[in-house]
């Protein structure tokens, strides 16, 4: 029984409270209300997924037919009946060259997903082989003081995901390092708060694209005579600057709205300013700071895709853009795969933050 309690606690802490009916079904004797709960919380959501797939399938079929008819009519108008019949037969045969290019169906997306995984396996194997082949030579080159030869082949979809994650974490850390200390300082002083308020209010709504351009202007000059990876630097700084505002505002709010009782206790005990900040103010504003950080991370992930797309920085954003430009028959379904991956990773990142937030917060709130 104890085991199931800890299991529940962990799922609760992670915001996976919806898994409770399942754990209840498997850890103890299922009660009638457990079964009802199971139906309500598992079966109904599953039905909603099926409904979603159904609408998607229907929609893509309708669009496919519309596009196909358009193609056939165009052939008829341009080249006559024979060409139209040929086009009809071509589409029906599944010949790649004449397929209408529109919203892919769920099964096409699934197939593309598998293709991308296969592709990753091939590229990984290739990379490994390259590494083995060049290992001995690189050792010599390094010994001779030369740069080792690195793999310069095309990154796989999975590599792109990791690049994006790396960029978003760098940006998130930057936001944290900038926004939390400034938020604390601003929160502590009403004067500073009112004098910096204009800056926050003006820059908070600025679009990620403009931040990117601003960062580009500065970084381009700064990295002129170094061969560092400026695309990565530009994109992570832009992500950090776009996303830090939620943390800044929340930290300032948390610090300025510390329970008056705690401040009074600190006053009566005559705590020094450092102790007051680290023992009373920061711990009591942690829940709000983490709410801010959680928003920051999700904003960072959201703007990252757009920024990568514009900055030509490798990652999921440029993957999506390249596929769109590519216009191959499975490009559209690869874009949809990327869309799902982006969504799922965003969801997981949010859950991770929620878990950390629940662990550090003294008042446990249920995940939303």
């Amino acid at each position, binding site marked *: 029984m104890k085991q199931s309690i800890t299991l529940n606690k962990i799922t609760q802490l992670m915001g996976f409270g919806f898994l409770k009916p399942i754990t209840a079904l498997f850890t103890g004797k299922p009660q009638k209300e457990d079964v009802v709960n199971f139906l309500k919380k598992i079966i109904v959501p599953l039905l909603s997924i099926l409904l979603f797939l159904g609408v998607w399938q229907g929609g893509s079929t309708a669009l496919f037919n519309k596009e196909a008819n358009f193609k056939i009519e165009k052939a008829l108008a341009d080249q006559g009946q024979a060409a139209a019949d040929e086009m009809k037969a071509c589409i029906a045969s599944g010949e790649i060259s004449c397929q209408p290019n529109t919203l892919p169906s769920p099964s096409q997306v699934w197939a593309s997903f598998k293709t991308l995984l296969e592709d990753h396996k091939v590229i990984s194997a290739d990379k490994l082989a390259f590494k083995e082949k060049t290992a001995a030579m690189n050792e010599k080159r390094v010994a001779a003081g030369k740069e080792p030869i690195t793999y310069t082949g095309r990154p796989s979809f999975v590599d792109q995901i990791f690049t994006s994650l790396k960029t978003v974490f760098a940006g998130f850390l930057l936001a944290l390092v900038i926004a939390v200390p400034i938020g604390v300082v601003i929160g502590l002083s009403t004067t500073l708060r009112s004098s910096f308020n204009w800056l926050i209010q003006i820059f908070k709504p600025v679009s990620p694209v403009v931040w990117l351009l601003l960062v580009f202007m500065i970084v381009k000059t700064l990295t002129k005579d170094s061969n560092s990876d400026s695309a990565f630097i530009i994109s992570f700084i832009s992500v950090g600057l776009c996303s830090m505002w939620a943390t800044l505002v929340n930290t300032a709010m948390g610090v300025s709205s510390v*329970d008056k*009782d*705690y401040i*009074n*206790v600190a*006053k*009566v*005990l*005559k*705590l020094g300013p450092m*102790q007051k900040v680290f*023992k*009373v103010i920061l*711990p*009591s504003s*942690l829940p709000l700071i983490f709410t801010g950080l959680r928003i920051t991370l999700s904003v960072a992930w959201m703007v990252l895709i757009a920024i990568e797309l514009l900055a030509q920085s490798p990652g999921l954003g440029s993957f999506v853009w390249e596929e769109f430009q590519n216009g191959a028959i499975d490009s559209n379904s690869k874009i949809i795969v990327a869309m799902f991956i982006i969504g799922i990773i965003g969801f997981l990142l949010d859950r991770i933050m929620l878990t950390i937030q629940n662990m550090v917060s*003294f*008042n446990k709130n249920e995940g939303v």
Partner: protein
Amino acid sequence: MKTATLNTDTSTLSENGIQYPSKVMLDLHNLKKVYPTPKGDYVVLEDLNLQIMKEEFVTIIGHSGCGKTTMLSMIAGLNPISGGNIAVLGNPVKGPGPDRGVIFQAPSLMPWMTALENVMLGVNQVFPHASKKERKDIAKYYLHKVGLDGSFDKKAIALSQGMQQRVGIARAFAIKPKVLLLDEPFGMLDSLTRGELQDILIEIWNKEKITAVMITHDVDEAIFLADRVVMMTSGPSAKIGDILNIDFERPRTRKSVLEHNDYYKYRKHLIEFLEH
């Protein structure tokens, strides 16, 4: 009439060769508090004079909003004085400090700290030169005194209201203040828990004899704990309306107090004042 004689004794006297100005621990002189409002000043307290002796336990009773809490937070130094002055052992009060420990109405514990850490927060501040172990022992001693032996390492938020207020009592006594200020500390508790905490408070107080000023709404609590009950008139411009000396022997028990002949006389006196 022990307190009555103390009350008039403000002359200088010598104890162990050291000159003490008097036996007065806390002196409120012509105290005034004004809150400026758009419609003009609102006078909360005016011409409030009160002297509290060393080792005296004074309870303050009065209607809600009459300025009791304002007065207490002025003594604590958390609320600026508009006129008159407050002195502790002859030294005027300038801002808050650990010589005046406060037990707040809400337990006001840091919820992210354990019971022990909450008490240690004050102890570390007041005894910076003691060793870590000595400081821990002080904190543990007072937590033991309030009956929290098994809960040293429980987070404050995991404790019940009553338990939290026990930690609040331990925290206030552990910093060895000259004056203990209690702002309706048991007001939020149910009557059973309140009784328990009154017993705990008075038990520690009997040992430490720290001059105490306590605000309460509860007539029985006021009589049970106090040497003197100070009755405040209703605001605005509240002042001391009446003072009642409680001549029960110390240490007292609840039973002996309830069975005492004077108990209902005192009670009637207070209730008549409040209903007036």
